[in-house]
């Protein structure tokens, strides 16, 4: 019977064309939107994780309370020992130390006096040991506009925006002026090894990137660091897993009565990332719900129109003795077949578009110039396994639901009135 119905669908275009188009358009939009949203939210999470939050972050309780002020006087002490402990207790994760600091970048004239200066937001990370993976994690190679990544102590990367504005070239020197961990004045002269542009104003306004060893020297932070960032295996954020790590670490190492004791936070608790993760997690459900609701209404309507158009056919079939439930069942099987065809078509088309947006992301750098949070500069979609079925099942469900609602009209037909209705 299925073959019979399938041939009917193929041969009678008026029976199948509109529903297939409706289902495939709905499935296509669902797949594209979910693929794109997943890509954008995934990138936001990755950028924030790599630049500032990690998948989990360890800070002192006081530092965490005042994090926006970069309070290195409240930084973690005995940090190498703590990092070793983290590596021992959570060996599958990657742990890196970071120091973030504020201050002034002062560029000297020929006499060694201030020629120009600007505010600096510095990040110190392990640049000199490739095994740390920090250069890759921060995407520094790609962000490099001029020069090279620091290879030696006393070298620094500065933002390309700063370098351009103040005519600072690779090889020039500048002095960092700020406060040490103990509150003393910090002065350290660096050579510009390169300039970087991350494409995010928060990083590009006054970014200064140096090696941890230089920061420790300048800021008097021997065996200290503001933050220890942890990254989950495969560098994939899993909030449940991060929550377990956070809970076990804090239970064992954090003392609520000591403001300098370490405390672990997971990504979803930092930088308002929880909202983004919640939106990303619920996005598929929201999209599918809207799709099924809207498509069911459309397909119900289409089914009603189809029912009207096939009014005579159903009447004839009833007159010939076919049972109402058989007609209803066959119309549902037809709906399943049309739903499969439309969903497959919509999924394939959607995946093609998602893949092309993954390879050729949309450049939105012109629109994010003044955004103060870490945002991706390109909006890309991502092909994930869920996209292969996320639109398919709702497409099928909407078609069947629509036809099931419309098909109820069959049971309202009265055999006694068939000949009158058919004007036989």
């Amino acid at each position: 019977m299925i073959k019979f119905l399938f041939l009917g669908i193929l041969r009678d275009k008026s029976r199948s064309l509109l529903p297939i188009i409706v289902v495939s358009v709905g499935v296509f939009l669902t797949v594209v939107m979910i693929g794109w949203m997943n890509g954008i939210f995934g990138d936001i999470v990755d950028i924030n994780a790599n630049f500032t939050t990690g998948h989990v972050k360890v800070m002192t309780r006081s530092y965490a309370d005042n994090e926006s002020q970069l309070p290195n006087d409240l930084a973690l002490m005995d940090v190498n020992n703590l990092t070793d402990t983290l590596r021992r207790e959570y060996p599958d994760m990657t742990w890196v130390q970071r120091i973030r600091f504020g201050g002034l970048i002062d560029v000297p004239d020929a006499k060694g006096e201030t020629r120009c200066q600007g505010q600096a937001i510095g990040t110190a990370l392990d640049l000199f040991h490739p095994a740390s993976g920090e250069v890759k994690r921060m995407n520094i190679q790609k962000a490099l506009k001029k020069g090279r990544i620091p290879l030696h102590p006393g070298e620094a990367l500065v933002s390309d925006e700063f370098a351009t504005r103040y005519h600072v070239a690779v090889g020039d020197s500048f002095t960092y002026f700020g406060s040490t961990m103990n509150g003393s004045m910090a002065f350290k002269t660096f050579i510009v090894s390169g300039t970087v542009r991350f494409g995010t104003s928060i990083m590009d306004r006054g970014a200064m990137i140096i090696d941890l060893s230089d920061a420790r020297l300048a800021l008097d932070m021997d065996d200290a660091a503001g933050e220890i960032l942890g990254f989950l295996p495969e560098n994939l954020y899993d909030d449940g897993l991060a929550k377990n790590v956070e809970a076990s670490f804090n239970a064992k190492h954090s003392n609520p009565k000591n403001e300098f004791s370490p405390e672990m936070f997971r990504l979803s608790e930092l930088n308002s990332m929880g909202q983004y993760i919640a939106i990303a997690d619920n996005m598929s459900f929201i999209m599918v719900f809207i799709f099924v609701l809207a498509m069911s209404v459309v397909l119900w309507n289409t089914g009603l129109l189809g029912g009207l158009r096939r009014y005579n056919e159903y009447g004839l079939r009833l007159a010939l003795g076919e049972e109402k439930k058989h007609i209803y069942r066959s119309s549902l099987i037809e709906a399943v077949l049309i739903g499969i065809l439309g969903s497959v078509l919509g999924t394939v088309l959607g995946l093609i578009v998602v893949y092309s947006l993954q390879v050729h992301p949309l450049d939105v750098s012109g629109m994010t110039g003044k955004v103060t949070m870490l945002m991706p500069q390109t909006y890309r979609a991502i092909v994930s396994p869920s996209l292969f079925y996320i639109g398919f099942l709702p497409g099928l469900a909407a078609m069947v639901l629509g036809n099931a609602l419309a098909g109820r009209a069959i049971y309202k037909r009265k055999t006694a009135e068939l000949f009158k209705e058919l004007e036989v």
Partner: protein
Amino acid sequence: MTAGFLLLAFALNAQDAKTIMAKVDQNMASKNRVFESTMIVHGKRASRTMTARSYSVGEQKSFTEYLSPVREQGTKMLKVGNQLWIYSPSTDRTILISGQMLRQSVMGSDLSYEDMMEDSKLTEKYAAVNTGTEEIDGRKCFVLELTAIVTDVNYFKRKSWIDTERFVPLKEELYAKSGQLLKRTTLSGVKQTQGRWFPTIILYKDMLKAGDGTEFQMTSIQFDQVIPDYIFSKAALKK
């Protein structure tokens, strides 16, 4: 006897705020001063002690050289007008600080660069109201409320507790224009030097900052000295 005391008390209360301020200025303001100081910064984790030698002429010129600890030794600051130059011997660089940066903390203390260089006559910058008397550490004080009459002041409002006999402030509260309390200072160790009373120990507490405040002790002070002009030149920074 009682009547005489009451008369004296009435006379003291009746002293107008302007006269009190003028007497405070006679003690606190000077043509110039040369002093050595010890600054103890009580941080959240530990305390740090620094010593320095300073020369200042009014509020316009000042020069400070840090003598200890080793990390700060040789660091010099020169202020002329609204500009401040800091010399760092470790980098052999002179860095200019101006504008908003002057409101930053000096060496992680509760003092800003502006606080450090304040040496102007209150009568020239504030209008005062005498609100009564209170006792501080057993000493009777006038309580003055000062409101700025010029725009270039560090603090728009001040509340000062002035020793009724020696005319030096024993406590001050410094407020922003919004009314927010920014700093509280407690002054003690009042000594008579060159015919004037002067508090030699000042405890600064930045109310917007954690920690137990900064103790600023003047270990020696001389007023109205002959200070060579070259002290207030950039050339002196590198000497």
